[in-house]
């Protein structure tokens, strides 16, 4: 319950945060809402020597209509993503999925950037932004760069973020006329998904991503291309089980997970086609 001791610095801007993390190196961790990191620290499963609190970098909490996409500041809380009118209009799949992260107390503190940077395959928002074809903007000592969500996730809790880089913005293309569905399958509402599916569909196009089906969030490209080629929903959905080689855990073995993925993708595509 009591974390191991650490040093603490507060950054007031992204530049300061990056300069601090460059200075302290790999023993340092960014602290945003803290809802991924602090639970690990309380069990002493994580023991960073330095926390750089970026929670007060206020200019990174925003949701803006930027023409063909919506720009979301990395420190925007789940609650604000969930209730954003702009997102309800242009990316309802994302705001809906944000409403399924953890519980309401968690959504008042946790941030979209924290969730994506943590790169947990079991998290709802990495897969959802992946399905939506999002782009992440990161900032490092040498300035900013954009990373497509499809290139971001490298392995279990590993991303393309360098140690001295910070995620600052998530860009989500507008969904214009697409149907969508978020299917989260779990045993208790507050839990991580056993399997989750974020999907959208527009005529012959679809985007489908899977939660907790492997070491990273998975873009189910075979499903999307089958839809594009005119396959039936159930035939396309059946392909989802072959998209990944998921782990076995307490709640689901590999075969059950694969089965669930197909069922949930089918349901998601059906809902998105209505």
């Amino acid at each position: 319950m009591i974390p191991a001791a650490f040093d603490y610095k507060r950054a007031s801007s992204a530049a300061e945060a990056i300069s601090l993390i460059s200075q302290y190196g790999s023993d340092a961790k960014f602290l945003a809402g803290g809802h991924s990191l602090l639970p690990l620290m309380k069990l002493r499963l994580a023991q960073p020597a330095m926390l750089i609190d970026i929670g007060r970098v206020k200019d990174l909490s925003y949701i803006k209509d930027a023409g063909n996409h919506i720009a979301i500041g990395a420190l925007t809380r789940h609650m604000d993503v969930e209730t954003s009118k702009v997102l309800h209009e242009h990316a309802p799949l994302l705001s809906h999925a944000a409403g399924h992260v953890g519980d309401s107390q968690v959504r008042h503190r946790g941030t979209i950037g924290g969730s994506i940077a943590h790169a947990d395959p079991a998290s709802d928002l990495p897969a959802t932004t992946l399905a939506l074809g999002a782009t992440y903007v990161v900032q490092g000592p040498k300035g900013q760069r954009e990373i497509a969500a499809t290139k971001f996730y490298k392995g279990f809790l590993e991303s393309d973020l360098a140690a001295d880089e910070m995620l600052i913005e998530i860009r989500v293309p507008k969904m214009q006329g697409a149907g969508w569905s978020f299917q989260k399958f779990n045993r208790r509402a507050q839990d991580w998904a056993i399997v989750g599916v974020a999907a959208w569909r527009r005529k012959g196009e679809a985007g489908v991503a899977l939660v907790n089906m492997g070491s990273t969030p998975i873009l189910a490209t075979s499903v999307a291309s089958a839809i594009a080629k005119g396959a039936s929903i159930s035939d396309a959905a059946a392909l989802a089980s072959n998209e990944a080689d998921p782990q076995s855990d307490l709640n689901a073995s590999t075969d059950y997970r694969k089965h669930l993925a197909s069922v949930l993708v089918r349901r998601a595509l059906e809902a998105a086609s209505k």
Partner: protein
Amino acid sequence: MKVSITVNGKTHDGDVEPRTLLVHYIRETVGLTGTNVGCDTSSCGACTIHMNGEAVKSCTILAVQADGANLTTIEGLAKDGVMHPMQTAFMENHGLQCGYCTPGMVMAAVGLLNENPKPTEEEVRLGLEGNLCRCTGYHNIVKSVLAAAGAK
């Protein structure tokens, strides 16, 4: 590190170790023991308080993160010796038994109604997904929250 935190309208200035969790700060430094600790994984919600008007789990926030914040704990809910309508509703509907989850449950429920003043039963159940109770089976907790919503 020096922090200034307002709890139930009273500002407390002092030094805290960075690793001090907000719930420990409230219980040990401020001395308000109504906020309980029920788990170590942010699962149970017993430690729920309001931070700048919103329900949060004080076991998953460092005291240093709350520097400058305005907190309300269960002790700050009753005014002038009169219980908050949510507290009254819990009493009238037998929404508590052992009472250990109750402070967190009440704070979460007040937060829920702040955001959704007229929830359905399903919305109440979903809105309390982050708070565990082992005694009541939640039946009377849900009833209490619906009663409090009706009384408003």
